């Protein structure tokens, strides 16, 4: 396994070495030959279907990595060159697979997963670079703007270029998170069985892949990036709700893989703590994102001029908001109807329709911060407040009653017309 790691390390570092060497043809040829030799030695040692698949993917990677130097390699390596070297490696691996009795289709399937893993790993690295640059740009731009305008301006200020960068970074972080979990899934899928059913050799193989792809490190990196993003951008409203959703999704995905990782890490004490470290970091991220969410909602009430008692969780929010609504309904300060109507209109048009009912209540319910019952209670209170303060509600009722009163005799006349005259009355006339 260590030697396979070396092959991959050689391939991964090849581009860096070539850059460092300013494209020395000699270095390119040396690297190709060293990697090919290393793969060849590993083929001799391969014992599991995963190892064969991994070597298959390594040959693919070697072929792809050096395809631009095909002409040079064909000239410089006598007599095999690029084409025959690759061909020989494939042939050797095929013979080894047959010797071990592995089914070709099984190797191909795992090779595909391994190739997916490598592709995803490359994408994660690219996103790392892109996200780091975006975060640095956002921090710099925010600092510059704050320098110019004081505290009036921050990352939450609607500034097109800054907002675009924030959106891009948020998308980048989301994509990275998704890639890491997809990568992890692809790793476990290669073994096609539960960790508990794996042989020690398979566990070691999987552990090697997990470490090589730095799964736990990448998860930690994601959490730290997301926390930094949260702290840097100070997002509000629906943007913040998106972040909360992202945190919950991340947590749920981590909950899915953490037990598997724990089983794989059973052998090493130090590694076992890795999983619990991620749990703690995830909890910190969850707390921070929750704090930011409640803070944002508290600020929203204040900014719109509604004095709801401060809350720090769903229960407090529900209780304090309902208490506020009850107070408006009961009107203990005996405000005039006109004042109450204006207050309600302001609440309804600038807070309820735009933010609370549109974004926050559905999100809080979805995130299980408040229950459906609590949401319905809030909605009922708002409705009651409306019915009480809406002017014309009373006179409308009076009009309706009056109309009713007028309609009854009319209907009665129509339904029960005058009785026909009797014969006596008729003869007298």
């Amino acid at each position, binding site marked *: 396994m260590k030697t396979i790691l070396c092959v991959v390390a050689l391939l991964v570092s090849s581009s860096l070495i070539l850059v460092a060497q300013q494209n020395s043809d*000699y270095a390119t040829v040396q690297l190709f030959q060293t990697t090919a030799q290393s793969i060849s030695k590993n083929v001799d040692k391969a014992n599991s279907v995963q190892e064969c698949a991994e070597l298959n993917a390594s040959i693919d990677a070697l072929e792809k990595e050096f395809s631009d130097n095909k002409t040079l390699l064909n000239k410089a390596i006598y007599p095999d060159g690029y084409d025959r070297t690759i061909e020989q490696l494939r042939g050797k691996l095929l013979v080894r697979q047959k010797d071990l009795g592995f089914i070709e289709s099984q190797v191909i399937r795992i090779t595909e997963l391994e190739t997916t893993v490598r592709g995803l790993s490359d994408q994660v690295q690219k996103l790392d670079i892109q996200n780091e640059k975006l975060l640095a740009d956002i921090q710099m731009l925010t600092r510059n703007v704050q320098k110019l305008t004081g505290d009036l301006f921050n990352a939450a200020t609607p500034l097109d270029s800054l907002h675009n960068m924030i959106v891009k970074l948020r998308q980048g972080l989301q994509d990275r998170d998704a890639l890491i979990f997809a990568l992890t899934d692809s790793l476990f899928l290669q073994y096609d069985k539960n960790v508990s059913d794996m042989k020690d050799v398979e566990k070691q193989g999987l552990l090697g892949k997990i470490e090589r792809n730095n799964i736990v490190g990448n998860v930690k990196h994601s959490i730290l990036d997301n926390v930094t993003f949260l702290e840097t951008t100070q997002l509000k409203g629906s943007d913040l709700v998106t972040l909360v959703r992202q945190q919950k999704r991340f947590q749920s995905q981590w909950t899915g893989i953490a037990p598997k990782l724990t089983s794989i890490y059973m052998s090493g004490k130090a590694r076992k703590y890795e999983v619990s470290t991620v749990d703690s970091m995830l909890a910190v991220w969850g707390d921070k994102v929750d704090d930011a969410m409640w803070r944002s909602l508290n600020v929203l009430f204040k900014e719109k001029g509604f004095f709801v008692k401060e809350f720090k969780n769903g229960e407090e929010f529900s209780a304090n908001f309902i208490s506020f609504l009850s107070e408006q309904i009961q009107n203990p300060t005996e405000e005039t109807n006109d004042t109450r109507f204006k207050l309600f209109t302001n609440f309804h048009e600038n807070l309820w329709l735009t933010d609370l009912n549109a974004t926050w209540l559905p999100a809080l319910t979805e995130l299980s911060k408040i229950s459906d019952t609590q949401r319905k209670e809030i909605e009922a209170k708002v409705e009651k407040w409306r019915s009480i303060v809406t002017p014309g509600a009373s006179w409308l009722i009076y009009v309706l009653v009056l109309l009713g009163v007028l309609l009854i005799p009319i209907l009665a006349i129509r339904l029960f017309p005058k009785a026909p005259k009797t014969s006596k009355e008729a003869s007298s006339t």
Partner: protein
Amino acid sequence: MKAIIILYSFSFLVLAGCSSLTLRPGDFAWPIESVSKVNEKGMIEDKQYYFSFNVKELLYDETQDSVNISNVTLRIIRDMNGYYFITASKFKNVYVFEQIEGGLKLANKILVTQDGIENPAFNQRSPYIQLLNGQNPPISLTKEGILKGENK
């Protein structure tokens, strides 16, 4: 008249037999450089291109030291015309040699930098030889020197 034709034909055959035979065009370019360590006797040996020669004189010319010569790594490449370009890390020059009977003869000594070349490497870029010099831009060389327009 017949005698003149016979004489003319005979002299043509004699002259043709005496003139040197030339094979052109030829391409002696190596696809990649040879990297060889100098041994304690001042010799280098290459197993890919199958040659060996003594480089004591070259090392003395460059370093003025003919004692500490072993373990110097020389980089050698041959251009399409058959000239050998030789240099090493910290060398100021690239030496251009042509083949003579049983050895090499200096054809040109190209000064690249007074500070010494950092991690040099040759690439075959026919009709030129490309010299990589650390982080500096690559230089194109011919047996006459650095290609015009290239940084010295």
